[in-house]
């Protein structure tokens, strides 16, 4: 198995979700995704966290010269390196929304399947890095939970869980986040994979367009961040939930159990307004995340997961000074 950090010019290119679905196991998919994500990344990528600067330490032979703070050198005329707060191993929680809405698909793979690919790839990467990672599948409650661990079979168990997950039930993201907040005793990396539908959405403030009033889910997200956790939201939507491509008279039925909403309409009549509503919906979540200093990533399920991860990992590297 090729090590992470394959050299530039690798033949591994991001693979589409449909092609990934044809692969045999989640492990293979995870590896393929990560290899595709690594393309173009020069250095040994590390899924760093939101690393925060802690202190300066005078340079001693053997220290990583890449950490030399040259500004400090200019000021002090001495060599100092940066020390970051958390240089010990970072625990990662992968939180998947497995509610019924995540099971929607029209073209390509469902949102849940796409989320499992992302989660599997990240679990694989974390495992290779030796970082403990855990998995939580939820709907209205925590359905499955693997606590973060660096043991040998952790990745295998996570992939197995991801392989077998089925969408069902309604969504209560807030409860899941609250539970994760309880479980994450120290600062952790929390990666959330959800369509964020049927959550109480953030509401744009009237006085200041940059101010968003957040609902319970968003509040929990903000609380996690405030506790020092590094939170990343992967907002996944099917292309149909971006553009509404249907034609002819259609009766739309809600997928989540207990939701009796229906809508009979000519999609032609709603298409333009739907696209705008979808855009506004994503924009509200993005603003809420920005307001809470949470990283927000949007992808449609047609986009190769490797591209998403490449962008994600690459940005992390640049922030940590590793890029």
């Amino acid at each position, binding site marked *: 198995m090729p090590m992470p950090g394959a050299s530039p010019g690798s033949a591994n290119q991001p693979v589409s979700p449909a092609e990934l679905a044809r692969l045999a196991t989640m492990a293979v998919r995870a590896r393929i995704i990560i290899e595709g994500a690594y393309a173009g990344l020069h250095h040994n990528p590390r899924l760093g966290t939101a690393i925060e600067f802690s202190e300066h330490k005078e340079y001693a032979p053997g220290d990583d010269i890449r950490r030399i703070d040259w500004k400090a050198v200019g000021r002090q005329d001495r060599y100092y390196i940066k020390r970051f707060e958390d240089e010990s191993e970072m625990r990662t929680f992968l939180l998947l929304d497995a509610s*019924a*809405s*995540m*099971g*929607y698909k029209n073209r390509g793979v469902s*949102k849940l399947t796409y989320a499992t690919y992302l989660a599997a790839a990240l679990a694989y990467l974390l495992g290779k890095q030796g970082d403990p990672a855990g998995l939580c599948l939820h709907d209205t409650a925590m359905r499955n939970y693997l606590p973060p661990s660096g043991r040998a079979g952790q990745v295998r168990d996570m992939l197995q869980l991801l392989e077998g997950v089925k969408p069902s039930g309604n969504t209560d993201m807030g409860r899941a986040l609250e539970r994760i907040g309880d479980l994450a005793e120290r600062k952790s990396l929390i990666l959330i994979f959800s*369509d964020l*539908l*049927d959550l109480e*959405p953030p509401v744009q403030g009237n006085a200041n367009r940059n101010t968003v009033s957040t609902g319970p889910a968003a509040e929990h997200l903000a609380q996690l961040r405030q506790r020092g956790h590094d939170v990343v939201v992967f907002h996944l*939507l*099917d292309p*149909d*939930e971006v*553009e*509404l*491509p*249907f034609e*002819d*008279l*259609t*009766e*739309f*039925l*809600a*997928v*989540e159990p207990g*939701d009796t*909403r229906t*809508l*009979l*309409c000519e999609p*032609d*009549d*709603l*298409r*333009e*307004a*739907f696209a*705008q*509503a*979808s855009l*506004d*919906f994503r924009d509200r979540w993005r603003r809420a995340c920005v307001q809470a200093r949470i990283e927000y990533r949007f992808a449609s399920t047609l986009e190769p997961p490797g591209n998403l991860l490449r962008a994600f990992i690459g940005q992390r590297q640049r922030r940590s000074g590793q890029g």
Partner: protein
Amino acid sequence: MGLLAPSLLLGLIAAAIPYLVHRIGKRTPRPVLFAAMQLLSEAQRRVRARTRIREIALLVLRTAAAAALPFIFSRPFIERETLAPQVSLAPQSAVILLDDSASMRRKIGRLTSWERAIERAQEIVRQLSPESAVALVLATVETPTPAGDLTLEHTRIEAALATTEVSARPVDFSRAIARAQALLANASHNERRIYVITDNQASGWENVDPKPVEGSPTVTVLDVGKTSATDNRAIVGLETIAEPELGPGGIAVTAEVAAWGDSIEGKLPITLFVDGRAVTQGVVELSSDGRGRKKFVHVLPTDGDGAHQVGVEIPADAFPLDDRRITSFMPGQAPRILIVNGDPRTEKTEDETFFLESALQTVGGGVSIDTILLDDVSAELMHNRDVVFVANVATPTNDFARLLIEHVKRGGGLFLSLGEKVSAEQWNLELGPVLPQPIGLQRTASALPGHNASARTGYVAEGELVDDRPAERFAPIDRQHPLLGTFGADGEGLSSTRIYKYFLLEPAPETEHREVILSYETGAPALVERTFPPASAGAHDPGRVLLLSTTLDREWTDLPIRPGFLPLVAESVRRLSGAPSGGETRSVLVGQPRPITIGRKHLRLEIEKPNRQVWIARRGINDPDKKLTFTETDEPGTYRVRASSTDNTLARLPVEDFVVNLDPRESNPTRRNDSAVAANAANEQPAPRYKMPLWHNLGAALILLVLAESVFSLVRRKRLTPV
């Protein structure tokens, strides 16, 4: 609104079809489990109002389109009050006869009767069915017909109505209706109508037979003047004569004013104008019969070209055209006249020249007259004379004859009258060079007045031979001759003259310089003219000689006591003197012709009308005098004459100027009292109503509805179809 075919409204059931299609024929929707219901709900909220409106609009459009068809087939109409008579919708041949006389210029409220008439005529044309043939005829005399043939092209009639103008000519409905009937005589339609649009003034209807002839076209009279007041004030007469007591330019102007209506009695301000400038104001008193006369006196300047425009005016009313009247007056240039009396008498009325002298006094302008006997004739007396009258002189002496011949050859005028004293032989001998024709034998047409004893005693004596032959009369006159232009067409004033005795004149070679002006009924010449052109062209006026084959007193004729004697003498003096003797120039009424002569001196004649248009006539350089008739007397006003001579210089001829005045009959607003007008007034029939079809409009609306629905749907589909 009414419906011509109401049963077809059953088709309104079709209007329910779009709704039924909408409700019943709904498509089966495709069910889709969709996760982003919240986004759908939000989108629906945003478009709900717009979509609903669009759906309702589409439904309305489709329902209206479906409902329009049965409505169209049921042929709805509305009834409107119309200005025109109820026009049959059936195809017909129709003549619109417009009264374009001067009285139509009378204003009623905001519009004149003419404007109302045009509106009604246009309404008629609009209402006629497309298969109807129409013609347009005007009622005034000698006015060209705008559209004198029946035509199916109604636009032609409408165009003619738009450009036709009201005239000032007199109206003759008898001739106009006859012309309309002639147009309809060969019409192809069974229904034939004449629509007469008039202000129903009585003038012009005198000769119209009120009883319709069976089989003739139906005549419908549209009265556009029924709301007008019958008040009017007008100047109906104007006379300007010389007033010698005031001097050479003195005139007396007498205006006759008439009023009709409620307040015809009273005082009316009146103004005298000379050459466009108000010179005197006065007041004319109207009597209970609505008539009044006002006399002005004024002194005209005698310099300049001599002709002056003299007019009077009263305050304008609803019909201003008759509130002003003009004449053209030329102060006389005082011709110098010498009369040689060949038969003086102590009894004034029996004197040869008594009547002549009296007549010459009316020429005016300070005419100077000297009467002498033959023995007193001398070159000094003959000097500077414009006209010489030789009346019943027995034997002209050689010297006298020579003086006369020289006088004529100098351009002077000579009037020769015959009588009992005249020796034809001596006259022919001495005056032969100037005589228009040699003098022949005397002819007695009938007994001279008082010749029959029975005429004196009152009874016929035994054995008395009574000469009861009728007196000679003049033959019908030729008004084309300038000397006779003032007389009426029937020669009024001369036609009643009795001639008992006269000289026959010997035949003379035909020549362009000799003309018989008056003849007797027997054909014998009565008054002959001979012209003597100057030796070199333009040197002076031609000399003229007039020969009257009877007497100028009452011995052989009663001409001196006939009304025509004065104007005959005055015109003779004017012609013989070649200079205006002064007086009111010719005046005609609108529409009346004016005889014109292009004399030998002129090659081209121009007449400038009041509207500045110029009428031109020419004469060939070698042609004789050209007599014409000017008929374009369309407008009241002064018509100025210019002429160019052989050297092409254009000069005014004020002596030939004339004025045209409105026919006084147009001023009388009295309306025609025919049975149709009376019946309408008595029964107070409501205004006719016209069924205006609406299906054309509905048809157009249906097309627009369908187009709107199509465009609406197309735009909606294009906007929603993803690119």
